[in-house]
């Protein structure tokens, strides 16, 4: 059973509350279902003593025990539903309570087929922007503001909490309080176009120390390349197509239309979960993105082999 992307994980406070409510619902509904099946089975295969049919002449008869049974059944169904409704309402309030004291402010902007993740704090100099990855300190309630830049997407980390849509022109939010560490995978849940399938987000819940170490590393600009091949790659990236769409903090590439590449090499996947991060996939992606993610906004550049080696070498320095 996978623990990376599943509602059974329950590694978030909201996820755990979902599991307990789901168990209650499953138990109650299973009992009701078994009652229905039992009554159906009995009705179909019981030994007939009395029968009220056309053949027996009194087909219109409706004996009183059945009427009281009907009233009893309605009462049972009503109580079951009331119990479930109240339980659902209480769980909903409990979930809202974790939202009352957020300690971490995050803003996620959905684009056609990738996630722009910004850690917006009170101090602008401490704000960090990354793409397609989300790091959360365990035990710290995070308040995520959700916006969309184009169509409706939906932010859903099954292991941690329920989903919320990202709607253009509106600002929605979600509060997540991770309770156990782990590596999780989130996927866009609202159909948003050709590559809705490859719009994933790698979620990492770690203890506070690791989180702060990652955060401080993220704040650092990209280091200038030293190796000659990486330098050639740097020259290509800065002067050709890459700089027109991507941002690499600390270099002239400053456009925000494509995902932020400042710390690309330290991420777990490429192109919003399309390919796991390794050298071979980097080559495959940069050489021909349209083959791996057809319809993606990243064009196939038609790089020469030497340019390809240079660019990949440079990208690998962006730790």
């Amino acid at each position, binding site marked *: 059973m996978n623990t990376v992307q599943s509602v059974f994980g329950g590694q978030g406070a909201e996820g755990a509350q979902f599991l307990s409510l789901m168990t209650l619902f499953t138990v109650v509904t299973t009992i*009701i279902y078994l009652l229905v099946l039992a009554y159906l089975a009995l009705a179909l295969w019981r030994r007939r003593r009395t029968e009220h049919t056309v053949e027996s002449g009194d087909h219109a008869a409706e004996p009183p025990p059945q009427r009281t049974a009907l009233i009893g059944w309605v009462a049972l169904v009503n109580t079951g539903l009331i119990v479930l409704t109240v339980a659902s309402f209480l769980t909903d309030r409990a979930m809202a309570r974790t939202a009352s004291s957020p300690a971490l402010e995050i803003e996620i902007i959905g684009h056609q087929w990738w996630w722009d993740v910004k850690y917006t704090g009170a101090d602008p100099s401490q704000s960090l922007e990354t793409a397609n990855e989300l790091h959360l300190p365990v035990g710290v309630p995070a308040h995520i503001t959700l916006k969309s830049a184009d169509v409706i997407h939906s932010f859903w980390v099954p292991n941690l909490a329920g989903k919320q849509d990202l709607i253009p022109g509106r600002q929605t939010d979600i509060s997540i309080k991770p309770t156990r560490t782990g590596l999780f995978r989130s996927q866009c849940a609202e159909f948003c176009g050709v590559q*809705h399938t490859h719009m994933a987000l790698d979620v990492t819940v770690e203890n506070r120390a690791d989180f702060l170490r990652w955060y401080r590393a993220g704040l650092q600009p990209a280091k200038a390349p030293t190796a000659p091949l990486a330098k050639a790659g740097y020259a290509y990236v800065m002067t050709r197509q890459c700089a027109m769409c991507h941002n690499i903090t600390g270099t002239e590439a400053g456009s925000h239309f494509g995902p932020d590449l400042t710390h690309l090499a330290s991420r777990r996947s490429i192109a919003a979960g399309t390919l796991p991060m390794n050298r071979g996939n980097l080559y495959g992606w940069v050489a021909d993105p349209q083959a791996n993610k057809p319809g993606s906004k990243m064009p196939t550049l038609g790089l020469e082999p030497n340019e390809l080696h240079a660019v990949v070498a440079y990208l690998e320095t962006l730790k």
Partner: protein
Amino acid sequence: MSAAELARDGPTLHGPELAARLERSWSRDPGLLGWLATVDHKEIGRRYLVTAFVFLALAGVLALAMRVQLARPDQNIIGAARYNEIFTMHGTTMMFLFAVPVMDAVAIYLIPLMLGTRATSFARLNAFSYYVYLAGGMLLWIAFVLNVGPDVGWFAYVPLSGPEYGVGKRADIWAQMVTFTEVAALSVAVVLTATILKQRAPGMSLDRMPLFAWAILVTSLMVIFSMPSVALASGMLLSDRLVGTQFYNPTENGDALLWQHLFWFFGHPEVYIIFLPAVGFVSEITATFCRRPVFAYPVMVMAVVAIGLLAFGLWVHHMFATGLPRVGYSFYTAASMAVAIPTGIQIFCWITTMWLGRPRFDVPFLYVVAFIVTFVIGGLTGVMVASVPLDLQLHDSYFIVAHFHYVLIGGAVFPLLGAITYWYPKVTGRLMSERLGKLSFWLLFGSFQLTFFPMHLSGMLGMPRRVYTYPAGLGLELPNFLSSIGAFIVALAFVLFIANVFLSLRRGAIAGPNPWKAGGLEWATSSPPPPYNFAHVPSVGSATPLWDGPLKWMSGLRVDEKEMLLTTVVSARPDLREPVPEPSIWPFISALALTVMFVSSIFSPWAVLFGLVPLGVALIAWFWPKQLEPTAEPVIE
């Protein structure tokens, strides 16, 4: 001729001679023109049924294509763009071109027979509705073949289907197809409502009406009050895409949620519009095969009406994840839970009918049992997703795909197949084969569970809806593989069912008027019924006329002119003799003019104006009254 000499049925004129004369005045002329001009509800009902099943087969093939693509992880048999087109076509065809029209088909065919009348009201409007529906279906599928098929999902959320991101004419084709099918469904709803309220056999007061007629009445009223919502929404989407209005443009104070509100205000009643006729089928089949009327008739009627009303109050449960205020959501949770009560009552009443009666395990009854076993699972998963915290995890995942296939296939297609097997002898005069019927039933029931139960699991393992592939290692391989295997067996079961339908046309046992010894009025006429349904007007004394003593009749309807009896709404006392419209080619021509107007309005908004001229001419010709000989009827009654 004065009123007295007009030929009328009665003691002086009955039996074969009457049948021959009625046959002459009620049948249409042969050939293509006659075929296009028919207003006989039985012919239109059959055409609706055949067309709806053709669309079911087409959409089913698309489902198989999707399952092939999803059988193994990271497959690329079908590209992303093509897969999006396929699942959009599958959803749109099943919802708009199969589910609603097939229920209309059976209702159009059966309601006049069940009510003991000779035709539906507004017979020409009925014919018109079929051609408009056919044109809508052809528009969608010809566009799909021409690589212009919609790829924005069957509910086409804006802004993906809007002018900026809904590229080309794809979403326009979808929106215009919705306009076609909604005009057709509204026309049928008007026809059925008027027929049920005004044309019941004398004595069939509201509390003696068959439960299927109640279900269709409530369904038609739901169509009348919900379909304008999707008409408005798709009209506004078309105007956004073609003339630049700003309804859904977030930057010009439009709102993407306006589309979701308007669409789901129609969307949820839509799924009950599909479900309630199936409730009618189950009630009729259970009554006949348990040899007694359904237990607690008034409670069943109130349950159907309650579902009809509640369905309008819970559309926001489709929008739990859009960030609307949480307090509002809890109202919709309660409303969504409440709609489970009438359904629960109906399930209880059906099973009590089985308890009190003596069930006969023929194929229709097997489908009813399969309906109860399957639909209750779907209903209970529905109760789960009615709760906000659960829905936030389960919404837009394959859990929802499992839920709605359980309630739509389990809740509507199983009763539909049972209904077809049950009324097949009335339509064709021959019984379907019991052996082949049971084989295809068990194959379908088993493979259905194999296909759709694993989807609950793949949904909870985080597989979102509408993904054309999924990565390996998430535990999704097994459930998806099982679903794909199951899908092909479901297809095989359907092929067997269709084979049974065609084989029994010639090799089925001769059925006669009432093979199942049922109690409804439709079993009082011959199989297949003559064009005029009943030689004389039947009069009803109880809810199951054929079970309560010999049938009594009323005479006096004209013979050489098409005429039927109107009765008062509540107690069905004879009220008026209404002439039935003659076959006419004009409904077909009006539908053609409407099609030209709608399709060309996708390409230029002026077409709406210029298209009105031919449409107006055709409608005038349609409504222009037939030249009655002035002396035939005394003018002042």
